[in-house]
């Protein structure tokens, strides 16, 4: 492509082609739905449409027809496989291969398959259009706009939907102007720290160096987070476009995307996208006839959470052990291969085309004053609607959990949300109405992190949750600096003692002492934030810790060590089934009389509870 206008021309021509589609059936091909068999549904539908001579796609020169296309993640993975009919916006959930024929059949007649529509739990409300489903109606999908709507494996669809038009605009501007636009938009890094992206770019721009790099951090390792995966899978070109713009603004010619090895589909989609972009003259030399050269390489991670840390990530790309290094120098001064490097995460880059296209002032209208824009969150745990969501910064926890997430299952009460993964902390019912943004969370001792949000109900033991995260960071510590390597080990030992019922009150003060040392003294972000889950649970749920160490009980009734099983005399019919399944012979008694559990030899496996036909065995915390 030679001129800056050609993207616009292409977009128009593709748009015209897409307009020939009478209807488009979108089959979700995100990791979630693929695992539930969505690709088979797609194949079946395509076959049917071809048989019926109804099939059309962007390259087919046909007057009109129905298109069926795989799409990126809709975010509502719990309901997968998801099939959406456009432009009617019918939203079918839990679709099976057997449903393919009926869907195609009815779609061709403009009819709806009512039984597959989403029903709101509890209320039984049926929603015809996905826009009316509470899960979506309260969201503001800007970065995820294309996810679920376009075929991520076809660059033309991205272009038809306005993709790469931001790129075609930038060459009229100077790199400083681009940096300035991003600075004005106050775009903050979505990977955790919230550092202003534009300033970072400008720092790199100002470095005198022949070689500079743009690195995209797609090593989303936080347990409970999959926003970046969905973007890479569902809209890979948006990330690429953001990276090229960053390259132009900072003076870099080479980009790297570092993707977790656990995301094979993301790697595949990105590879396809890069190849297509090269074919279209969007990557490589003389991009869009601008004389600007930029290309992207993909590096697959090899399984180390710490590589999400900037300097560990660059070290890993360089072929080394992913160990963080001391700073200064900053990555923007000496990053990858010792060269000035722009390092942002996937979601940050995905925001860039929007800012360039719509202007900083448009962007500033979204979100809060100091954290403009939206944020994608992965909503998981004890919540009705698990999935991927995007909301403006400043949305409250209440809106997210109750409006979008549909509340807590089984009408249990909300206890806490663990936000920001192993580096973050927890928020409690008292924070339900706090607007969430970088600064408010920081003030609460938590952090947005990469955006994992795990909802916990009343039955969750917060001490055990803290232990879980401690176990995670301890396992993922790179082992370089003393506070993190040795401190997390000691902290985990203490946490394990507490959940096993062997903790003492002194252990809690020791835990706090070590936590402070790890937090203040560690070399990198992973270590500095590793004590957060422990510290915030100690802050908000100290009484639970005390219950464990002082009264040897788990208030949530979750810690195995404190569980006791008891046979209720009145309910026991003396059938002896429990005694038969008990692996340690802890249950004894005479047939047709009430049995007894010897708590000394009981290992609390719960086998008897399942075996008892009369529900006579009770679990006590």
């Amino acid at each position, binding site marked *: 492509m030679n001129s800056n206008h050609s993207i616009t021309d292409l977009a128009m021509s593709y748009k015209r082609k897409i307009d020939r589609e009478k209807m488009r059936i979108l089959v979700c091909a995100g990791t979630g739905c693929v695992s539930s068999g969505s690709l088979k549904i797609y194949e079946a539908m395509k076959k049917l449409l071809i048989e019926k001579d109804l099939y059309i796609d962007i390259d087919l020169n046909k007057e009109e027809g129905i298109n069926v296309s795989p799409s990126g993640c809709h975010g509502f993975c719990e309901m997968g496989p998801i099939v959406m009919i456009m432009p009617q916006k019918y939203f079918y959930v839990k679709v099976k291969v057997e449903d393919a024929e009926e869907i195609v059949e009815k779609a061709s007649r403009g009819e709806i398959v009512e039984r597959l529509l989403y029903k709101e739990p509890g209320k039984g409300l049926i929603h015809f259009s996905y826009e009316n489903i509470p899960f979506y109606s309260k969201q503001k999908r800007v970065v995820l706009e294309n996810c679920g709507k376009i075929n991520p494996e076809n660059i033309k669809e991205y272009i038809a939907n306005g993709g790469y038009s931001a790129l075609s605009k930038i060459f009229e501007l100077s790199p400083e102007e681009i940096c300035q636009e991003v600075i004005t938009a106050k775009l903050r890094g979505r990977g955790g720290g919230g550092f202003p992206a534009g300033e970072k770019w400008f720092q790199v721009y100002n470095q005198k160096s022949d070689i500079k790099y743009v690195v995209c951090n797609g090593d989303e390792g936080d347990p409970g987070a999959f926003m970046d995966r969905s973007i890479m899978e569902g809209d890979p070109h948006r990330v690429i476009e953001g990276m090229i713009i960053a390259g132009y603004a900072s003076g870099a010619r080479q980009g790297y995307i570092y993707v977790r090895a656990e995301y094979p589909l993301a790697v595949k989609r990105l590879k396809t996208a890069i190849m297509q972009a090269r074919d279209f003259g969007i990557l490589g030399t003389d991009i869009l006839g601008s004389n600007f050269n930029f290309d992207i390489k993909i590096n697959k991670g090899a399984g180390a959470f710490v590589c999400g840390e900037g300097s560990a990530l660059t070290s890993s790309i360089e072929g080394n052990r992913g160990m963080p290094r*001391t700073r*200064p120098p900053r990555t923007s001064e000496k990053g990858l291969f010792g060269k000035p490097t722009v390092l942002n995460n996937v979601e940050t880059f995905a925001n860039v085309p929007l800012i360039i296209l719509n202007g900083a002032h448009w962007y500033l209208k979204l979100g809060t004053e100091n954290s403009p824009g939206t944020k994608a969150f992965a909503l998981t745990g004890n919540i009705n609607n698990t999935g991927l969501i995007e909301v403006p910064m400043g949305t409250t926890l209440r809106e997210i959990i109750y409006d979008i997430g549909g509340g807590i299952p089984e009408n249990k009460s909300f206890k806490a949300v663990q936000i920001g993964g192993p580096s973050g902390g927890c928020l409690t019912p008292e924070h339900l109405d706090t607007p969430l943004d970088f600064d408010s969370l920081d003030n609460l001792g938590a952090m947005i992190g990469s955006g994992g949000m795990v909802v916990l109900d009343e039955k969750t033991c917060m001490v055990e949750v803290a232990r879980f995260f401690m176990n995670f960071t301890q396992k993922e510590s*790179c*082992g370089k600096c*003393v506070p993190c*390597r*040795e401190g997390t080990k000691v902290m985990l030992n203490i946490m394990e003692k507490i959940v096993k019922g062997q903790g003492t009150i002194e252990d809690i003060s020791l835990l706090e002492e070590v936590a402070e040392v790890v937090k*203040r*003294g560690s*070399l990198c972000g992973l270590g500095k934030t590793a004590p957060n889950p422990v510290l915030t649970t100690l802050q908000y749920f100290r009484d639970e810790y005390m219950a464990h160490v002082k009264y040897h009980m788990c208030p949530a009734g979750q810690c195995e060590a404190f569980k006791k099983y008891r046979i209720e005399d009145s309910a026991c019919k003396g059938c002896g089934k429990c005694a038969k399944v008990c692996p340690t012979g802890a249950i004894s008694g005479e047939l047709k009389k009430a049995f007894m559990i010897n708590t000394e030899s009981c290992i609390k496996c719960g086998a008897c509870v399942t075996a008892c036909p009369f529900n006579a065995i009770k679990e006590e915390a």
Partner: protein
Amino acid sequence: MKTLTINGREVSFTDEKNLLEVIHNYGIELPTFCYHSELSTYGACRMCLVENEKKQLIAACSTPPKEGMKIKTHTDKLQKQRRVTLELLLAGHDRECTTCHKNDDCKLRKLASDMGIEEVRFSGNIKNIEVDNSSFSITRNPNKCILCGDCVRMCQEVQGVGVIGFAYRGADAAVMPAFNKLLSEVNCVGCGQCAAVCPTGAISVKSNIEEAWSAINDDSKYVVAQIAPAVRVAFGEAFGLKDGGACENLIVSALKTIGVNKVFDTCFSADLTVMEEAKELEDKIEKGLNLPLFTSCCPAWVKYVELKYPDFTKNLSTCKSPQQMFGSFVKDYYAKELGLESSDITVLSIMPCTAKKEECKRDEFKHGDHYDVDVVLTTQELIRMIREAGIMIEKLKHEPFDMPFGFSTGGGILFGSTGGVAEAALRVLDGEVKEFHAVRGFQGIKEASYDHKGKKLKIAVVSGLSNAKILMDRIRTGRSHYDFVEVMACPGGCIGGAGQPIQKNIGSREKRAKGLYDLDNKNQLCRANDNPMITKLYENWLGGVGTKKAHQHLHTQFRQRRRFESSIPLIKGSGTINIKICIGTSCYLKGAYDLYKEVDQYIKEKELTHTVNLEATFCLEKCTEGPVVEIDGELFTHTDKASVIQYIESFKETAQ
């Protein structure tokens, strides 16, 4: 001049690399395990933290000083932070301090006592890993490792060997050779610099004190000691004597007090080495053969060449090192003078060096059950023996070396410092000039050229093996040409050897070197050929420099060494014909891989896969003559496809 504020007082600074150095120059020694000015900044021990204006803790080692900075070094928060960090380290550390080699020199122990750590409140992390005693030079005890990485960076950055590295991660992280092999199974050259920087007892110098005692206490043994040049200028540091002051006469006295029969000077045999080596150099220049000539006094360097540059072993001087020449003339010549069998004599070396411990055990120096040099002690071990024996240094008389091998010229003394061997040789070659300043000093690579008999003699002097690597690559690729190259493995030469007392600061090496040059200045004689004792030895025993007899006793041969024992099976047939193709570095560069592909294809074409066993091996020890192939136990060099096929065919025929 810029200023910053430390604990409320203004402190000026200039070009210090980091805050830690500014604070050190100001007069406060912050604790650190992982900072060494000569190594890259690692920033892992987190002991040198200081508090900035924002009350944040920052690591002084990795923060550049900035004008107007305000820092504090000992706030309550910092004290607590350091104490708990130390306590965390101690929790995972084998705390058998009393029986530890490093004992008094252990930084961890010292800090724990300075900080008043009285209790370790965390438990259960002490490992129980087997100690690696396989090396002649060093002992590795992983249970005492605090993972500061000093040894790893020393081995990689300064010595360019990279034989130990970090492995695994998190709580399992450890320092070890590849595949957790023993040090004797990997390419360790035994320089011991890892032990010199190790703050704890995780890597320490292998002790031979027991053997020394038992020889001294064995009445049937006549113990003859030699003292290397560098030992005398470092020994005093341990007893609070003047840094760099020469103490040879005290050492002689101490050894005699312990019960050693004769104490001679390695500087004498250094003079002898110079005689032989200068001759060798002249011969080689004349013939234009195998230049440059490399010095071979440093056993770590010799092993480095054997392992990494096998094609250059022919360039190593065939002269034995001064230590080994000493062993030879004591056992082969002096024994007869004394009327003793060589097996009645124990040669005890006092060396600044850990690699000498391995050198004396090389096969070349073994005769039946006996070695030329029996026991090698480092300066540090000697100090420990003296302490063990309860000898009070201040009460010792100064005693001269025994004769005849206690007399040396200034040239022999210079062997202890980088540039010294080259200078001693130049003095002999030149005959007029005494001081050759271009080869002196602590620069890693020094170059000089001198006129010699109408020719330009190009010389390079190197210390630190990573510098040697740079030089070797230049020589190998033809970018540099030299006639004579002196290499000492340790930075600064033997005075910086790993067997010396732990260097208190960067300046101690300079002081030791100065001590040697002072001795040289005081010496009336500076040229080895002016040493009357040397002349006499040639007259009485060898019959002249470079004679056949001199070669028989004072020269040796170096060989290429096998680096890996392993091989990669490629075709597993019945084994009627066993073929091993070497794909080690040298052979690989000479096209061994292509050869393999061709042979492989041939075997398949001829349907020999059932009869042939094909393996790729890493070294068949004929590196200069590659590609090397072994067929049924027989080695073939300079092979190509045609020759290998011919061999296979002939083997096939004999087999049939």
